[in-house]
């Protein structure tokens, strides 16, 4: 599978597909299972300073073209997460996702993830349904730069920054990440959304506002990666609505060095990564590409 090897800045992965944060990554055993299912790496659940039960149920449902969720960043807190990381990092590369409300909090959490053995940290500056966190701090280019700088000063491992598509200044935010020394941009997180139940005259989810993911957001994600490729020169990791190898190729050809997926696990199962790996190999052979890197950004040429 050497043709599937990818490099994101300073780190390499044997396979290009990475489990997106929030999917099958809350426990050590689960992350191990995903690594054994063909994923090149796993991004952990976004972890904060304290245990958080998240929003009350209902916080998820399928919709015709994907799913919506407002989990509300449930996690056991950074201290308890040490045990999960200890189990997971023995099996393969784990990227530690963290969320905070201030540069100092991000830096502290990222430092702990580094101590736990994370090969990189991913800053969640994009969750659309957590008050005071996520995209509320991630849509201001200046604030994004300050957070990235604080984390860069605190850790040696690469700092990835996950951005939201819920903005018209994505390129400005991307440039802020690059200028502050960020090592890679992950795009996109879910789109801010809502579902209403007419019979009850009320929003379905307890948090009312939620994030939309799945097949329907792929064209938006591909465009976002395309725009970021034109704005920055640091690596981009594409995510949003990837279900098969052709979806992954769209992101790669738009400029992504690697890709993440999550919602596809719902319909395609946990072996979706293995299926995509096989699909990519067959495609590369048929179309004469020797590596993922050779295909990166070709749609711009």
């Amino acid at each position: 599978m050497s043709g599937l090897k990818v490099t994101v800045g300073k780190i390499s992965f044997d396979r290009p597909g990475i489990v997106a944060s929030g999917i099958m990554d809350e426990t050590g055993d689960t992350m191990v299972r995903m690594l054994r299912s063909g994923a090149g790496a796993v991004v952990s659940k976004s972890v904060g300073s304290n245990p958080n039960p998240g929003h009350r149920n209902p916080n998820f449902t399928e919709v015709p073209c994907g799913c919506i969720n407002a989990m509300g960043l449930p996690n056991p807190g950074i201290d308890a997460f040490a045990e999960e990381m200890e189990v997971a990092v023995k099996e393969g590369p784990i990227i530690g996702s963290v969320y905070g409300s201030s540069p100092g909090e991000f830096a502290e959490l990222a430092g702990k993830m580094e101590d736990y053995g994370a090969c990189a940290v991913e800053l969640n500056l994009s969750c659309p349904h957590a008050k005071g966190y996520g995209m509320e701090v991630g849509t201001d280019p200046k604030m994004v730069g300050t957070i990235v700088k604080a984390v860069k000063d605190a850790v040696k491992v690469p700092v990835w920054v996950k951005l939201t598509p819920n903005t018209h200044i994505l390129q400005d935010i991307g440039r802020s990440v690059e200028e502050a020394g960020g090592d890679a941009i992950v795009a996109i997180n879910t789109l801010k959304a809502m579902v209403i139940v007419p019979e009850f005259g009320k929003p379905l989810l307890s948090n009312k506002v939620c994030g939309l993911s799945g097949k329907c957001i792929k064209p938006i994600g591909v465009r976002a990666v395309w725009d970021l490729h034109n704005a920055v020169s640091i690596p981009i990791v594409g995510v949003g609505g990837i279900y098969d190898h052709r979806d992954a190729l769209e992101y790669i050809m738009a400029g992504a060095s690697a890709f993440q997926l999550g919602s596809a696990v719902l319909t395609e199962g946990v072996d979706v990564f293995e299926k995509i790996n096989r699909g990519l190999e067959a495609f590369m052979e048929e179309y004469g590409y020797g590596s993922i890197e050779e295909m990166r950004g070709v749609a711009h040429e």
Partner: protein
Amino acid sequence: MSEAIVTVKSIEQTNKYSKTIRFDWDAEAKPGQFIMVWCPGMDEIPLSLSSVDDEKSITFKVIGPDTEALASKSVGDKLRIRGPYGNGYDLSSKRILVVGGGIGIAPITPVLKCKDVDAVFAARDAGEVAYADPLGKEYCKNHWICTDDGSMGEHCNAVEMVKKVLAEHEYDEIIACGPEVMLFFLLKYLNEIGMKCQFSLERYMKCGAGVCGACMCDEHRVCKDGPVFTGEQINKMKDFGTGRRDACGTFVSYR
């Protein structure tokens, strides 16, 4: 999976602790599968189907604010459901003994209706199990009842009852649903005698559909890989009988 707004067709007191809501929903479902149930005024919760025909039902113990809200529903009220989720029971073995403990009797009820099986109904007291007696009479060749306080049937627990039954009857497989402590000791005994089994497990659920990772028992998603697991699988689970994850994902030990 599909989602639906269903209308409460009937709501009745099943036993001293539990109620049953019936509703029409023509989705295909297997015994052992569950649905996510919600209406305004409660949190969405997973409930096993106690009937899998076109007229479906949920049978639930009233134990907290969500089940209290459900218990207060009247005929004509609406519920929003999604599912069915989970794998359901594998009913391919020829001679099956089903074991239901407490509210665990509800999820095994559809098994009685679609296959010739024998059954053990175990509960704290007569108030919790009396309703199962007519079910046993109608659908099973043999059925046994036992209670912790001796108020109905044999005065013993589920595991002791199963031991007595297995001393006189032969089965190829045991299918059980009930409190984890019951399943824990039942598995221990079935391992000793080398009996094949499938148990339905329970964990705190959020998405119910296999993506969020809230209901993990070791590396298994109880909502999607389960809720029914084989004895072989359960024997390898270090979480089984030891503890469970709470809403934060923190491991909470039973002891």
